[in-house]
Each structure stands twice: as structure tokens, then as C-alpha cells.
């Protein structure tokens, strides 16, 4: 079958991004190293173009390539979010790469390739399409994690991510093959029919569900499949860590939710209980282990695990049978809102960690933050806002994200789940506030006192401004984003 123009038009953003990525890889060798920034601006331009195209998808639904790809408001929402995240990552990297002396411009190409993978994931209507997207995203990320190739930690991070990542992909693929066995197809709609007719006590269905959950659980770093997260996050260059923690998590959640709801919507009890266990374990372990971390990047890694746990509440609610309609219960839309908000908070926090690096400080140990408020008021204040937001204290967006999630949980008759999550959110305040305490309530050492040159470059300032604007504006006026998410989930069948 030859793809028609309609099909190609549907995946225009993906084509643009892949094209831009290839162009970047070609242009890289012929660009003098003093002008590598040009490549970054080019990728930003590609993102802006895609943004325009995808905005148009926010209100229609198209199936392309004989139902392999779906373009619907749900996918469009995630793509828009991913563009913003990628754009902020690229802007931030322009400064960070120079500081770290990483002069490989394939960097931007890989960001775009990995973004293309994520975009394919979120608009996959077929398990194989989704799998292809996951692989494209993951392989690019494996390479990017090792970009500080002269540092053992970075190499270790890359290798660990690669080995565990391939393993989980294998499990995912096994699940897909089982599903092919029972339905004779990899399309989500066909799988849904086969699964519904077999019922959830069929062992084949159970195994397939379990394998899929393990595979995706790894990608979103849900406990107990989270082991890779702290090491990989710590070792990878900070800009890459931020990208992984935010973009790949958002894309994986998007695909995860679509597979569960569209493919397994008929057998909710088979997976809701499993997700519930994962959810509670993830929230508990992420928050408790984060308390003992002294490395800020590791702490943020565990915090990202914990936040994945909160987001899983959205899936649990969407899978609650009592509430019938997954859309009305608000599980899906609150998850989308939460991940969007989480992106801004986490990107902001990682950007501050990266900026400290610029001061000649390592910026990764908690001690490096000592007395930051005396040395650089602005950076300390921003970090405080991000920490407070991650802890979920109003009037920041972190609160609004949790509010909608917990509201969905209470609506689904799971007030107890909201209570558990909230108790751990209160515990999390301890380690987030420790950063604030170190910055504001400890005196900097004599050596640190001289390190006032944490100058923001224009590009990092833009990143921080976007992040703080997201955290504050979404906290005070979440209304518009809420209506976007609620209308986006209407496209679910």
C-alpha cells in the first residue's frame, strides 16, 4: 500500500521533526564550532513550526495509515506539551553544553529524534507503532545519557539505561506478541474486542496485561521497576536528565493510558488492581527514599518517581469500574494536567541545578546550595518556588495538579487513596524544604561566598522565566489548561 497524501499530511509534524533532525546531523560537520548555536535555533524553529501545525489537531480526530496512527486532540495535547518541553530543554542546553564542554552537535539532532519517537508513541493506534516510537525515543536517550563521555558516571548511566531499557522493551514486546496470539492483530481496537470477549480471567489476557504493565512501568519508572532511575538521572548531563524526567515520562504515560483504556477498557478489573499496587508503592518508596538523598539530582530522581506515583492515581481512577465512564471521572484529564504542571516544576528545578554548575560549582550536591540566598537571591528564590510547587503547596501549580488528581480519586470513591497520597505529599515537604533550608538558613562557606558568578545567560533566563510562569500562572489560573485537557479526553471512544 502506498501512503496517500492524506496520510502524510496527518503525520506532518513527525515528518518535520525527523527531517529537521536529519538536516541537523548533516549540517553538524560543516558548522564551525563557534556557530553551533545556529543548530539549536534551527531546531527551535522546527518546533515552532510543528506547534502551529499541531494546534490545528486540537479539535479533530483522524486515523491514518490504515489505522496505525491516530491524530486526535488527546495526542495533540501531548505533542504540544512535548514541543514546549523540548524547546525549553534546547534553550537550556545552549548554555549548559558550553559549560560542560560537550561540543557534539548531534545533541540537538538526538533531542529531535527522541521527540519524534515520543510523538509517534502518543499518536500510535497500534501496539507496533507505539513500540517503534518507544524504541526511537529510548535509543536516542541511551546515547544522550552518555554524552559526557569523559566521565565514568555518564557512561555508566548510559550503559545501565541501555541494558535495563532493552530488557523492558523485550518484556513489552512479549506482551504484544501474546496479544497478537489472541487477537490476530496489533491494532488497539481489534485487541479490545478480543480481550473483552475473552474476559479478564483468561490467563493469556492476564499475562499480556502484566507484561505490558511491566514494560510501561519501567518507562514511567514506577516501583518496583524504578531501579535504573536514580543512577541514570545522576550520571546523565543535567539537561538530558531534565528531558528524560519530563518528556519521556509524559510520552510514556500518554501511551500507557491509551493502551490501557482503548485496548483493555473492557477488562478494567484485570489491571486496575495492579496499577493501584504500583501507585501506592511508587508514592511511598519515591518519597521515603528521597529523604535520605544528599545529591540533589538523585533527590529529584526519587521525587520524579514519587510524582509518577501521583500520576498513576489518574490511571487508577480511569480504571475504576464503579465510576463507569473514565472520561467523566476526571482520571484522564487530571493526569494530563498533572504531567503538564509537573513538567514546568521539574524543568525549573533541574535548570537551577544546571545553572549552579556554571558558577564553577558542581551544583549537584545539597551542600552546593548552602547559603545560596546570600550569593544569588534570584536563583535561590526560584529554586524555593520550584521546591514549594513540587511539595504541592498553594498558590503554586503543584497544588492545583494534586487537587484535580485527588478530586478525581474522591469522585471515584477512593478517598482513602487520596489520604495516603496526601500523607506522603506532606512527608515530601520535608526533603523539598530541606533545599530551602540549606539555601536560606545556612551561611555559605568562605569559598562559596566568592562564587557569586551564577550569571544567567539570556537563554537560561528564558527557560527559568517559562518555568516560573508555568508554575505560578497555572497555580492561580489553571482554568484554561483544565478546559483544554477536559475537551481533549472527549476524543476517547
Amino acid at each position, binding site marked *: 500500500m502506498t501512503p496517500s497524501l492524506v496520510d502524510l499530511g496527518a503525520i506532518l509534524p513527525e515528518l518535520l521533526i525527523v527531517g529537521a533532525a536529519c538536516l541537523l546531523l548533516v549540517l553538524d560537520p560543516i558548522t564551525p564550532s563557534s556557530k553551533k548555536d545556529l543548530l539549536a535555533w534551527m531546531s527551535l524553529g522546527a518546533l515552532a513550526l510543528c506547534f502551529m501545525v499541531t494546534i490545528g489537531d486540537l479539535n479533530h480526530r483522524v486515523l491514518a495509515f490504515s489505522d496505525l496512527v491516530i491524530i486526535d486532540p488527546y495526542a495533540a495535547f501531548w505533542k504540544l506539551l512535548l514541543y514546549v518541553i523540548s524547546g525549553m530543554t534546547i534553550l537550556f542546553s545552549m548554555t549548559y553544553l558550553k559549560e560542560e564542554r560537550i561540543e557534539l552537535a548531534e545533541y540537538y539532532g538526538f533531542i529531535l529524534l527522541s521527540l519524534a519517537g515520543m510523538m509517534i508513541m502518543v499518536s500510535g493506534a497500534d501496539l507496533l507503532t507505539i513500540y517503534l516510537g518507544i524504541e526511537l525515543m529510548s535509543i536516542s536517550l541511551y546515547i544522550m545519557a552518555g554524552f559526557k563521555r569523559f566521565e565514568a558516571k555518564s557512561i555508566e548511566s548510559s550503559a545501565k539505561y541501555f541494558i535495563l531499557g532493552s530488557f523492558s522493551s523485550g518484556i513489552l514486546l512479549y506482551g504484544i506478541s501474546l496479544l497478537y496470539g489472541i487477537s490476530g492483530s496489533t491494532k488497539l481496537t481489534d485487541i479490545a474486542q478480543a480481550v473483552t470477549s475473552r474476559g479478564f480471567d483468561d490467563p493469556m489476557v492476564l499475562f499480556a496485561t502484566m507484561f505490558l504493565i511491566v514494560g510501561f512501568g519501567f518507562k514511567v519508572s514506577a516501583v518496583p521497576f524504578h531501579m535504573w532511575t536514580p543512577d541514570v538521572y545522576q550520571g546523565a548531563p543535567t539537561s538530558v536528565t531534565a528531558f528524560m524526567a519530563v518528556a519521556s515520562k509524559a510520552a510514556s504515560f500518554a501511551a500507557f493510558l491509551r493502551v490501557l483504556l482503548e485496548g483493555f477498557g473492557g477488562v478494567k478489573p484485570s489491571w486496575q488492581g495492579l496499577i493501584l499496587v504500583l501507585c501506592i508503592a511508587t508514592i511511598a518508596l519515591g518519597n521515603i527514599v528521597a529523604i535520605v538523598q544528599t545529591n540533589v539530582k538523585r533527590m529529584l530522581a526519587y521525587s520524579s518517581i514519587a510524582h509518577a506515583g501521583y500520576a498513576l492515581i489518574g490511571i487508577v481512577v480511569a480504571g475504576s469500574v464503579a465510576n463507569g465512564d473514565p472520561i467523566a471521572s476526571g482520571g484522564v484529564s487530571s493526569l494530563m494536567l498533572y504531567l503538564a504542571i509537573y513538567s514546568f516544576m521539574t524543568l525549573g528545578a533541574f535548570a537551577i541545578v544546571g545553572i549552579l554548575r556554571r558558577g564553577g560549582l558542581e551544583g549537584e550536591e545539597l551542600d552546593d546550595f548552602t547559603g545560596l540566598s546570600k550569593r544569588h537571591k534570584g536563583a535561590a528564590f526560584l529554586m524555593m518556588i520550584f521546591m*514549594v510547587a513540587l511539595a504541592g503547596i498553594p498558590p503554586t501549580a503543584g497544588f492545583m495538579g494534586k487537587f484535580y488528581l485527588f478530586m478525581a480519586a*474522591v*469522585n471515584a470513591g477512593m478517598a482513602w487513596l487520596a489520604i495516603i497520597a496526601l500523607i506522603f505529599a506532606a512527608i515530601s515537604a*520535608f526533603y523539598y524544604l530541606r533545599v530551602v533550608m540549606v539555601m536560606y*538558613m545556612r551561611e555559605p562557606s568562605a569559598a562559596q561566598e566568592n562564587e557569586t558568578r551564577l550569571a544567567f545567560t539570556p537563554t537560561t533566563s528564558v527557560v527559568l522565566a517559562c518555568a516560573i510562569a508555568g508554575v505560578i500562572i497555572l497555580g492561580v489560573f489553571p482554568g484554561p489548561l483544565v478546559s483544554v485537557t477536559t475537551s481533549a479526553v472527549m476524543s476517547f471512544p
Partner: protein
Amino acid sequence: MTDMAIPSGGFPWLTLLIVLPIVGVGAILLAKEGAARQVALGFSSLVFVASLPLWVFFDNATAGMQFVERHHWINSPPINYALGIDGISMPLVLLTTFLTPLCILVSWTAIETRVKEFMISLLVMETATIGVFCSLDFVLFYVFWETMLIPMYLLIGIWGGPNRVYAAIKFFLYTLAGSVLLLVAILVLFFQGGNTFDILALSQAEYAPSLQALLFWALFAAFAVKVPMFPFHTWLPDAHVEAPTAGSIILASVLLKMGTYGFLRFSLPMLPDATELFTPAMMTLSVIAIIYGAYMALAQSDLKKLIAYSSVSHMGFVTLGIFAFNAQGIEGAIMQMVNHGITTGALFMCVGIIYERTHSRQIDDNAGLAMPMPKYATFFVIFALSSVGLPGMNSFVGEFLVLIGTFVWSKLAATLASLGIILAAAYILYMLQRVIYGTPSEKMVTKLVDLNVREFGMMVPLVILIFWIGLYPKPLLDVMHASVDRLVQRQAQVMTVDQVGPIPQDLTLISPQRSVLSTPVVSMNR
């Protein structure tokens, strides 16, 4: 519902009060480092002036909300930016706006580092507390309620005493953990009370008694930590002792009131059956707090700790009055909230002033102040006696009303609570005897300089308020009557309805008394 929302007649006074301090924050950011104090004082005084119309234009005749503003904030779920005040919240708003300029004055020379940040934290606190007392939407209330944690955490943690980091995180985690269940309760109320966060609508809705019981404890967790009720009070002495003077004043005078205000605004009107059911438990905890707090105060050698424990005792009177659930008790409780704000704030101010001179809060280091500091000693004695509840001064009115209200509910509880007043006399007089009339320690005596003009000026308005409320409380009581009567009548109605069905014997004994009491028997200064 019809009589409940009276529009403000146009001008958004309450929004002005909430926004002005934030504008002040902006001005401080732009101001030079040296001018932060003046700017902050200017804005907080402006807020106080802007809050006076609330008193002047307040309509005592109605129980409805006044100065109401209502705008859509978020459409789904329906969350409104809804503000309004009634006779319960109005005095607390004024208390907040009145005390904030004093807090800035008291920190004038005491705070030398990071003055800008300090003043910003104070003003953000002011916005958040006014917001808490004015909110008519439960989510808006919660947002303000939690927002207040951060500036308070910074106030204690940055400008506090040696053990400040521990005290700050303890304060933060205690109150945050308390609010956890509050948020869930808000969400449950939303779904059970007709898909609304409107506080007035939620107060009108009916909830099943078993659900009420659960919700009652959820709200209790949040409010009891703030008050703080025994046994959730352990954060208070730490926070008070370590906080800078202004922080202690805000904490004691305004922040603790948020807990008792929560009981009055939410627990009582929304959960009348559960309140009735758990009244004995609440009364017991209150009496324990009164006596335990007083006993602990007797044993303290640190002035701030002494006042902190006296706070526990005095706030016990407030909860006692609230859960007596009759007109006298509740009016007494609100009076006591205001009085405790004034008196304890004044006492902390005095401790701050002496601490600036001697850098010690120990009673032994600050003994015998009457000779070197006669003006200071005069004020200190006035405030201390007000704290004891001497007739003619403010606290007497509140405590007396609370005791009358309690007496109706249980003679035993009232008797035990009166013990608290006797103990208060004991610890305060014992403290006065040493601090004012003791022999000054040799090394300190040179540092004991009497009040300067600024300090004198801070004391005078407090003294005026103490005697005004003490001698002529009628204007303040008039403000509360309508709102409190409605609260009590609603409870009486609920109880009358209950009597139709099979109910335990002891409830029938209480209810007739309740309905009698909603028409005031004791007319004090009315």
C-alpha cells in the same frame, strides 16, 4: 440562603485588603535596602486604614455575609473567588490589619539582616490571613490557609533563635500534616453537599450522621493542630521560642485564631450532629488544655515559653466556649480570640523589647525591671494583668462569657476551667514578682534602658484596646450577636428535628436547654 449574601454596595473592600499587602511586596522589591521598613510600615498602615470601613459600615442587624464579592475563578469544578465577612470574621480581620503594622514596628531595630525579605514575608502573611478569614469558597480558603505556611516557615527559620531550623520544620510539618485530611474533607463535602465549594451552601446541606463523624475528625485534625488543642500543641512552644518577636506575635495573635475560626465556620454549621456527638470529647480536651497549659506555664523559666504555654491555656477557653455551643459560649470564644490576640501579642512585644536589650529571655536575667525601666514595667504589668483576666480588662469579658456558657453545659467543666484562671493568676503574678520587682542582676543593669518613643507608641494602642474592651465591650458584642444567634439557632433546629426520631436520652436533656439559651439569658453589658 436568601438573606445570606449582601453585596458590598460596589466597592471591593476585601479584595483591596488582600491585594494591598501584595502591592506592598512589589514596592519593597523596588525600594532601596534601607527603605524597606518604611515602605512596609506605610503599606501595612494603609491596609489598616482600608480595613476601618469594615467596622464603620458593618450592619449589626443581619447575620448574613457582608461586603460580599463573587467572581468565577475556575469553571470546572465550580470554584469561585468569593469573599465576605460576618460578625465572626470581621473582628479577626481587623485584628490582623491592626497587628501587622505593630509587628513591623517591633522589628524596626530587632531585624538587621535581610530586612527586605523579612518585610515581604510579613506582608505575604497578612494577605494570606486576611484571605483565610474572608473566603466564602472552601478551595479559596484552603489556598490561603496553606499559602501562609511558607512565609511563616521562613520567618521562624531565617530570623529565629539558635534552634530555629528545627522549630521551623516542626511547625511546617505539623500544620501541613494536619491539613492533609482537611483537603480530603473539602473534596468529600463537595461531592456530598451538591457539587459546590460555596461555604454558605455547604453549611445549608445535610450530611448523614456517620459521614459527619468522619468529616468532623478530618476537620479536627487540621484545626486542632492550628489552635493548638491538647495533645497537638507540642510544636507551639518550639515555634514561639525560636521565632523572632514579630513572628511570635503573628503566630499567637492571628495564626492560632485560624484554627478556632475553622471550627466556627466549618465544623459547627456543617456538621451539627457530629459536633453534638463529640462535644464531651472536645470539652474534655479543652479543659485539659486549660489546666495543663497553665501548669506548664508555672514551671517555665523562659519568658517566651511561659507565654507560649499560657497561650495553650487561653486557647483552651476559646475551644471550650465554641463547643459549649450556646450564645454566651460562642460570643465569649470570639471575644477571647480577639483578646488573646491583643494581650498575648502585647506580652510577646514586651518580651521582644527586653530581649533586644539583654539578649536573654530568661526570667532570672531580666529581673527587677521596675526601677530601671518604669514605663516598660507599667505596660508590662497592665498586659500581664489583662492576661490573668482582671475585671475591667479585656480578657475578663471573654473568659466570663465562656464560663457562663460552659456552666450551662456542665457545671463540672466550668468549675475545672475556672481553676485555669486561678492558675493563670499564679503563674503571671509569680512571673511579675520576679521580672518587675526582683533584684536586677549585676551584669544586665546597664543595658536596661527604658522605652523609646517608637516602643512607647506601639504600647499605647494596645492599652487603649484592653481597657476599651474591658469596660465597654458592647460594640464588639453587638457585631457578633446576629451571626452567633443564627449559628446557635441552626443547631437548635437540627436538634429539634432529631427529637422526632428515636434519640438517646441524654440528647433530649440537652436540647431544651439549648433552645432556651438561643435567646440570651445573661445580659452582660448589652
